[in-house]
């Protein structure tokens, strides 16, 4: 694919904070959403004539609606604790990718229009007008934040940088400057039901194929049911699980877990997507409309439980927002978590002794675990502190013999983003994606060198796709990345073949 050439950063033996390179990523920006893409979401088709007034008005609306945003605008003291915590800064050296500086692109406009000092003495307080130049800077750098919130972990005030990025993207979309990748995908969900745009007939054909493949590989009739009324569980999973490698291996893993545990389950062609890019563009209405398909499908199929597959931000939306977006869930079985993560489901079954494994089946793999940002820093599992870290690792250790964690400052709540999250997993941002993966690649390299790790498990479709793409740039095999339920699926005992 034709793209401007760039050099992949060198992997160093230990993390080095890069020298600042002013403007190093100023050229990086994703394609702007075209008129038809914008129109489908109810956004203006192109940059509107009075965009400046509209943008300021939108900012005022958001400041009123989200008090947190106003606090984040007012409270930063520029202490610098966040400055070397962002993977995009560490990978690119561009000072505007220091979280504090990226936020300040909005903060200086906020000061100009919403504070006394900025209105009357802008030169004293670093307040600036919202010019086209500033807007262009916003478009470039607010599309160089994956909303992973690693910086927020280190902020003494707890400023949620992702929320600032979301607000900026929301303001830009509302004046006609939407981002093609995310907005095109959201349109597909509304039209077809999933990010990939897989229609029901194709989904049915794909699932039939998986039943054949699994039968051939195991001799057992493992089912991949679609739109089955009266099933106990509705599984909502990223559509990449149907379409891509290695994602599909985890889908096979979920099916085997349900089979082995004797749980009746179904997928839905109406809610054939767990992902919710409404979160990435900071738009409440889009996020609600996408989520609503899950409620509709659950009611239509009469299920008792909703389980979410391996998708990082889907779990954030489900865990944090579903109850207010699409609740109440009084029609579901309250004895189970509502909603439940597939890892919680599998973990509970393991605890109860309901699943058995041939761990040796994974002996060819020396495994590490990449915590996905939205799971790690915006959710929980198993109703216990740190459950989102403990449970996936406990599953891996139950199904495989060789596990090694990466360095402590690169995992759990301090995990580094894969480099492709938050609506940036697009070909037009390949340079950013490769460079942003640097901190994770360095941490991976040290467990590869020390322990011979050859498999990095994760529970996010974006992480899987991003690493498949960027691992080869750093000299690793793309097959090194896979899902936790890929490992489960390899080792699980299914009973006697028929």
């Amino acid at each position, binding site marked *: *694919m034709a793209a401007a050439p760039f050099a992949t950063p060198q992997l160093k033996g230990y993390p080095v904070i890069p020298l600042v390179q002013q403007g190093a990523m100023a050229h990086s920006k994703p394609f702007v959403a075209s008129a038809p893409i914008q129109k489908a979401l109810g956004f203006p088709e192109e940059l509107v004539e009075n965009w400046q007034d509209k943008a300021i008005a939108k900012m005022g609306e958001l400041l009123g609606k989200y008090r947190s945003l106003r606090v984040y605008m007012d409270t930063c003291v520029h202490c610098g604790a966040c400055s070397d915590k962002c993977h995009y800064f560490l990978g690119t050296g561009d000072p505007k990718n220091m979280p504090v500086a990226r936020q300040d692109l909005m903060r200086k406009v906020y000061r100009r229009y919403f504070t006394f000092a900025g209105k009357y003495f802008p030169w004293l307080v670093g307040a600036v007008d919202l010019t086209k130049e500033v807007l262009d800077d916003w478009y470039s750098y607010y599309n160089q934040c994956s909303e992973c919130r690693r910086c927020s972990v280190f902020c003494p005030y707890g400023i949620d940088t992702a929320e600032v990025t979301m607000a900026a993207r929301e303001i830009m979309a509302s004046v006609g400057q939407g981002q093609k*990748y995310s907005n095109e*995908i959201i349109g597909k969900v509304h039209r077809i039901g999933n990010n990939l*745009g897989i229609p029901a007939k*194709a989904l049915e054909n794909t699932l039939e194929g998986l039943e054949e493949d699994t039968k051939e590989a195991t001799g057992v009739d493992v089912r991949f049911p679609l739109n089955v009324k009266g099933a106990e569980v509705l599984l909502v999973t*990223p559509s990449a699980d149907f379409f*891509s490698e290695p994602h599909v291996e985890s889908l096979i893993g979920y099916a085997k877990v349900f089979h082995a545990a004797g749980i009746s389950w179904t997928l839905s062609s109406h809610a054939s997507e767990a992902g919710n890019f409404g979160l990435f563009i900071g738009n409440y209405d889009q996020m609600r409309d996408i989520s609503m398909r899950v409620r509709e499908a659950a009611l239509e199929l009469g299920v008792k439980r909703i389980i979410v597959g391996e*998708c990082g931000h889907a779990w954030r939306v489900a865990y944090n927002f579903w109850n207010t977006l699409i609740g109440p869930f009084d029609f579901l079985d309250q004895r189970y978590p509502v909603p439940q993560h597939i890892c919680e489901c599998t973990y509970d079954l393991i605890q109860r002794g309901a699943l058995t494994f041939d761990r040796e089946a994974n002996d060819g793999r020396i495994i590490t675990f990449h915590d996905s940002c939205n799971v790690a820093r915006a959710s929980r599992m198993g109703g216990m502190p740190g459950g989102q870290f403990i449970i996936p690792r406990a599953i891996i250790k139950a199904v495989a013999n060789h596990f090694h964690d990466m360095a402590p400052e690169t995992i759990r709540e301090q995990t580094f983003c894969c480099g492709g999250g938050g609506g940036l997993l697009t070909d037009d941002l390949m340079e950013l994606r490769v460079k942003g993966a640097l901190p994770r690649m360095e941490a991976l390299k040290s467990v590869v060198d020390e322990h011979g790790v050859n498999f990095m498990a994760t529970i996010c*479709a974006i992480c899987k796709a991003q690493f498949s793409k960027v691992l080869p740039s750093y000299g690793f095999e793309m097959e090194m990345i896979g899902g936790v339920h890929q490992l489960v699926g390899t080792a699980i005992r299914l009973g006697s073949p028929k």
Partner: protein
Amino acid sequence: MAFELNGKVYETDEEGYLVNLADWDEDAAKYIAGVENVEMTENHWEVVNFLREYYNDYQIAPAVRVLTKEIGKKLGAEKGNSKYLYELFPYGPAKQACKIAGLPKPTGCV
């Protein structure tokens, strides 16, 4: 954006995917392959033709598993895997082969 071959104009999007599926013909495929540095062999054509057939039936490119299984049947079991497809289309069978086949780009977490 567009390119022109033998007097026929092919409209494309920013990334070089054909805008109108019906515009596609073998010349367009060869042209796009050239831009992508892919030299079209018989096996490349097998993949491209299957993608178009499948799209015609299902309005979406086949999932990777569906594709590898079909290619395994057509070209031999040893070729029915992603690794072989990546040899044919180094940027990834889903995106690069779809582009050459004149299909829309697969979107999402892929």
